[in-house]
């Protein structure tokens, strides 16, 4: 309280009393376990609100104190303050007065009136505390109020401007009340009016005098304990209790914090501060590890909510904490942190004993920490706008995270090899860490990974090396990913294995090894089972498939590329399938819960596959396949129905419907106009359109890809031309064609031969004269095509009829076939019987007879005979 009023220079006559009072309480409770709830319960107030208040006040008071420049009180700076009931009443009064002042400033008479009443209600109890005297600030405020009311009243008389009736009423009431009320405090008011400064000052002196005494006294008290050990440290804890952090009490404090963990109203920041101090105090590695484990966990707890992300500062501290933990663990091989098989000793007093084999086991999980660290970074990156500097800044934390991952991997690896542990460590933890490492590698180009790896190995102590990924082989990146994936194939199962496989395929596809990645993709048979995996793995699958498609495109394999991308790009849901942004679908109703989950799944921006590039590649491939097909189909309705890419067709139709088409603006326009040109046989124009798309620059070796595209367009243009214009030709010179499409004669001959062979073109190649001779009248007549349609339709009709029948009879099996069925069965039975009888008549009375009998009677009787 007193601290609070320093800056205000208001009065608190009995702050010394109060301090002593709380001091007493503190000494009483010094030995007992202290918590904030306890003291607030004593005050018989609502514990929730009070503790909240205190949190706020601590901050504010601390701030004021620094301004007061009082060196003696430094020690108390960061202490949680617990206030007595009286203090609170003062606070309330203060709050009310502030409200009053605010209302005065804006002349809100209604609020003034209300607050005045409230202030008067609060007064009696305070007067009781102050031996019947009114608090000084009260006097001050009522004095100010009176003057203002008088002024306002006078002004009201003079000016004709009417006040709001409610305000008018309130003001009159207030005036009456003030007049009546102020009589009681006549003397005080006069004193205040005479010299406000003096009136308030005497109080300040009164108050500040005892303040410095108290902490001194406390410090002296503490000195006795401090003497005992040099490193000892004094803190004034909750409720003004002294918190003494000694190496001995570390574990006890930890226990307290552990118990408070997860509870409501636990101030985690406070706990972190305590633990930071504890860490400074800790002497043995055991203690340090214990504190670190707790500290890191608490840091992660700070943002356990769904909406919040870890601040960079906290994240870095957590990262450093983990690094420190790993440092210690790397240095001291006799201490290990294990997932299972160890328990914290119940008795904090005794020093922990190493197990029989000389290893001190501490429960905890390094892999979980690293995983959590990774998750937190991902969450942060998800929430930041990727085009800001902040994103890049946070992304720069990745190498340190990665080095943590590698070190954690080394550690778990060592742990696995360590045979001194009471319980052998599960394979799973090492798998998890390796998986994380792989997930940080698979989407990056080799050059980036090389830099990352080099940096990481530098940060790892020289003495350490990994069996799985030896330091010496760190430079060969392809090999690294391969090794990690292979390790997981061998040792992991289920989802991790599938993920490892996908990561490797992705990496291979990224590095232009199409056939290898395709073979692996097919051999994995993941496409059959992917639906049963979790959503994140499905997303990874989609990403991998997309990457394989892009890889095929870079290799110039148009058909393969189109087929691979078909599912992802043809669905209009690329964003959702690749988890690269939410797609608001107009007619879908997703609950906020689903949307939240969806948001959590999103990939950070630096992992994205460029969607525009993807669309461009897909559309270009579709164009190269669709345009010749469309030309081939001509006007035949049946062939026209064979659609390669539905979305492309839709776009093309839309584009064709447009009355006026301006110059192309985006990728889609480019491709569409190119399609139009290609369909008309103008391959040069089409090629110009396609090659002027800027996005090709994003691909590595864009020149090569452009050359490939040009070549493809020439070839497909030739095919389209032949399909479209073949009916108008009798013969066509190969050289002429070669000239038209600027292709080699050999190439043209090859293409034409291929078309003839596939029966796409009714023609023959005259090699002597170098000409193509077209045959006429080989197309179906209208009647023939109609007849074909009819046969299709009729079979469809039969099918649907059968389906209906099936539907009707599924409950009562062969209800419809009863008559026919019986006839059939009877016939079969008769035939069987005949054969049976024949058998028994013909052959000797041996097995033949028996067989015949069985056939004849069948069923139960047959088995009875067999039993005989």
């Amino acid at each position, binding site marked *: 309280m007193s601290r609070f009023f320093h800056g205000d220079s208001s009065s608190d006559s009995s702050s010394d009393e109060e301090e002593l009072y709380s001091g007493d309480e503190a000494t009483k409770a010094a030995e007992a376990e202290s918590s904030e709830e306890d003291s607030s319960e004593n005050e018989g107030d609502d514990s929730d609100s009070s503790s909240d208040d205190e949190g706020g006040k601590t901050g504010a008071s601390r701030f004021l104190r620094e301004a007061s420049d009082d060196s003696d009180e430094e020690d108390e700076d960061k202490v949680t303050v617990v206030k007595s009931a009286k203090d609170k009443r003062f606070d309330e009064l203060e709050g009310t007065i502030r409200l009053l002042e605010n209302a005065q400033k804006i002349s809100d008479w209604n609020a003034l009136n209300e607050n005045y009443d409230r202030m008067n209600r609060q007064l009696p109890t305070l007067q009781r505390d102050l031996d019947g005297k009114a608090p000084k600030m009260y006097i001050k405020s009522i004095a100010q109020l009176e003057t203002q009311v008088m002024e306002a009243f006078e002004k009201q008389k003079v000016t004709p401007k009417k006040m709001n009736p409610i305000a008018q009423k309130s003001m009159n009431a207030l005036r009456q009340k003030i007049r009546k009320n102020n009589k009681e405090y006549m003397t005080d008011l006069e004193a205040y009016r005479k010299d406000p400064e003096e009136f308030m000052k005497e109080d300040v002196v009164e108050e500040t005098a005892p303040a410095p005494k108290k902490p001194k006294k406390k410090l002296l008290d503490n000195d006795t304990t401090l003497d005992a050990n040099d490193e000892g440290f004094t803190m004034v804890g909750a409720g003004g209790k002294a918190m003494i952090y000694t190496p001995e009490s570390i574990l006890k404090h930890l226990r307290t914090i552990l118990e408070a963990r997860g509870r409501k109203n636990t101030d985690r920041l406070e706990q972190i501060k305590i633990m930071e101090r504890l860490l400074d105090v800790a002497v043995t590695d055991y203690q340090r590890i214990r504190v670190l484990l707790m500290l890191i966990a608490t840091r992660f707890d700070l943002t356990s909510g769904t909406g919040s992300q870890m601040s960079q500062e906290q994240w870095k501290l957590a990262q450093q904490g983990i690094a420190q933990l790993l440092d210690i663990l790397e240095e001291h091989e006799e201490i290990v942190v294990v997932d299972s098989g160890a328990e914290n000793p119940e008795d904090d007093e005794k020093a922990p004993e190493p197990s029989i084999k000389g290893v001190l086991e501490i429960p905890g999980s390094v892999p979980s920490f690293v995983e959590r660290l990774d998750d937190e970074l991902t969450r942060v990156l998800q929430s930041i706008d990727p085009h800001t500097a902040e994103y890049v800044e946070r992304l720069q934390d990745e190498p340190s995270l990665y080095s943590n991952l590698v070190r954690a991997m080394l550690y778990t690896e060592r742990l696995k090899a360590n045979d001194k542990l009471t319980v052998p460590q599960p394979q799973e933890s090492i798998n998890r860490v390796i998986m994380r490492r792989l997930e940080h590698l698979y989407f990056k180009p080799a050059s980036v990974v090389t830099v990352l790896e080099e940096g990481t190995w530098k940060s790892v102590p020289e003495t350490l090396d990994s069996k799985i990924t030896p330091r010496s082989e760190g430079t060969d990146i392809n090999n690294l990913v391969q090794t990690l994936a292979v390790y997981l194939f061998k040792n992991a199962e289920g989802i991790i294995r599938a993920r490892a496989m996908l990561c490797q395929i992705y990496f291979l596809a990224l590095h232009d090894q199409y056939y290898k990645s395709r073979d692996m993709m097919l051999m994995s048979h993941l496409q059959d089972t992917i639906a049963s995996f979790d959503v994140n793995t499905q997303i990874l699958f989609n990403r991998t498939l997309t990457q394989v498609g892009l890889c095929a495109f870079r290799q110039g394999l148009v058909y393969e590329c189109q087929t691979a991308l078909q599912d992802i790009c043809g669905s209009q849901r690329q964003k959702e399938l690749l988890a690269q942004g939410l797609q608001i679908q107009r007619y879908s109703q997703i609950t906020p819960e689903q949307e939240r989950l969806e948001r959590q799944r999103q990939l950070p921006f630096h992992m994205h596959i460029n969607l525009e590039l993807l669309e461009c590649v897909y559309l270009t491939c579709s164009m190269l396949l669709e345009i010749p097909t469309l030309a081939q189909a001509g006007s035949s309705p049946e062939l026209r129905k064979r659609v390669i890419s539905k979305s492309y067709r839709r776009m093309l139709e839309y584009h064709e419907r447009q009355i006026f088409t301006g110059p192309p603006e985006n990728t889609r326009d480019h491709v569409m106009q190119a399609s139009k040109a290609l369909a008309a046989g103008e391959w040069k124009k089409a090629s110009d359109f396609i090659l002027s798309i800027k996005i090709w620059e994003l691909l590595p070796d864009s020149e090569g890809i452009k050359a490939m595209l040009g070549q493809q367009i020439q070839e497909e243009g030739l095919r389209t031309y032949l399909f479209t214009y073949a009916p108008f030709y009798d013969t066509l010179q190969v050289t002429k064609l070669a000239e038209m499409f600027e292709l080699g004669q050999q190439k043209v001959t090859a293409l034409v031969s291929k078309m003839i062979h596939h029966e796409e073109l009714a023609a023959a190649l005259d090699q002597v004269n170098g000409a193509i001779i077209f045959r006429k009248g080989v197309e179906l*007549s*209208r*009647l023939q095509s*109609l*007849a074909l*349609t*009819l046969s299709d*339709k*009729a079979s*469809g*009709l039969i099918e*649907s009829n059968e389906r*209906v029948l099936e539907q009707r009879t599924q409950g009562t099996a062969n209800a419809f076939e009863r008559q026919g069925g019986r006839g059939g069965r009877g016939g079969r039975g008769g035939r069987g019987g005949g054969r049976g009888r024949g058998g028994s008549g013909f052959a000797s009375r041996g097995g033949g007879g028996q067989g015949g009998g069985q056939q004849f009677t069948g069923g139960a009787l047959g088995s009875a005979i067999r039993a005989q």
Partner: protein
Amino acid sequence: MAAVLPADAPVRQVQLSALVVMRLIKHSTQIFPTPATGCLVGMEQPKTATLEITNSFPFPASNPDNTASVTTSNPMDPYHQADQLALALAAPRAKGSVSYQNEMIKYLREVNVDAQGVGWYVSCSMGNFVNAAFVENQVFYQRATGEQSCVLVFDVGRSSQGSLNLKAYRLSKSFMEAHKEGKFTSESIQKSSLRYQDILIELPLKIHNSHLLTSYLHQLPNIPTTTDSLTLPTTIAEIHRNPSLASNPLTPNLDNLDLSIDPFLEKTLDQLLESIESHQTEQNNAQYYQRSLAREQAKVKTWKEKRASENVLRVQQKQTPLPEDEWTKLFKLPTEPSRLEAMLVGRQVEQYARQIDGFAGTVTGKMFGVRGGLVPGEGL
């Protein structure tokens, strides 16, 4: 026809006078492709169970020049034809036509012509006459003028191929009964065991010439005299110039040897495909109904179970049980679509199939003839 003529039917065959045939052909070809409709008059001969049709007159609505509404409308209007089609098909039932018919019959009686309305006629193209309007018309006639009334169907398209195509139909008794009930749900169809083959009954047709006409025909130049040595024509022009072929209307002409079956088959196939399509639509409707019915029934079932368990609880608590038949108010079962359309489509498909069969039959015969002519050495 599949439906067999019942033995006790009042009329077992139809006798047409040549006049009616000629009038029918004239009217139908005149306003083709709009279907022509008109009224038939004649009398019934109960003794021989024959319906004699002696005269006919067209309905005014089917003649576009007579109706004001049609003359004012733009003939280029794409809906014009569809309008006319509907109008023409609805003509026999229209109120105006009925009064017109009565008037006409009155006048005919005055000139001493058989004055008894015995049915109506309609023209079609390639057998596309089986539809709802056709059935409605015939129902109307069979109700109004008795069971004996029949409909003559003249197929313009097929007749142009060379042989007259005229058929007489009547609706079957079972169909009439079913139609009386007014609904064609699967249940009622099952009960009456009505099949699409049973809708129409075809009557045998006989063309009768009056004695006067027969004597006139006998006066016409005779069949060309058969000479022993046939001088075969060398060019088509020679055939056309042949006086005995050009001047004699009764000599077999070359039209009968026409082999171009394609246009007819194409047209029929087109129509067949159309019919199958509409059949599919009908089927989809039925399936949709089935699905929604199943859904509703499941709802009702769960509701009933819930109510039953509630009632058990209420009985235990000694409360009066809630009524269990409230579901009729709460749930509305979907109404079943009429199956009549599906049946008619079935009948129509059958009609087309028969037609194709017929074409193929005659053309195959001609083909053999051609083969015999081309390759004299072998065959035949």
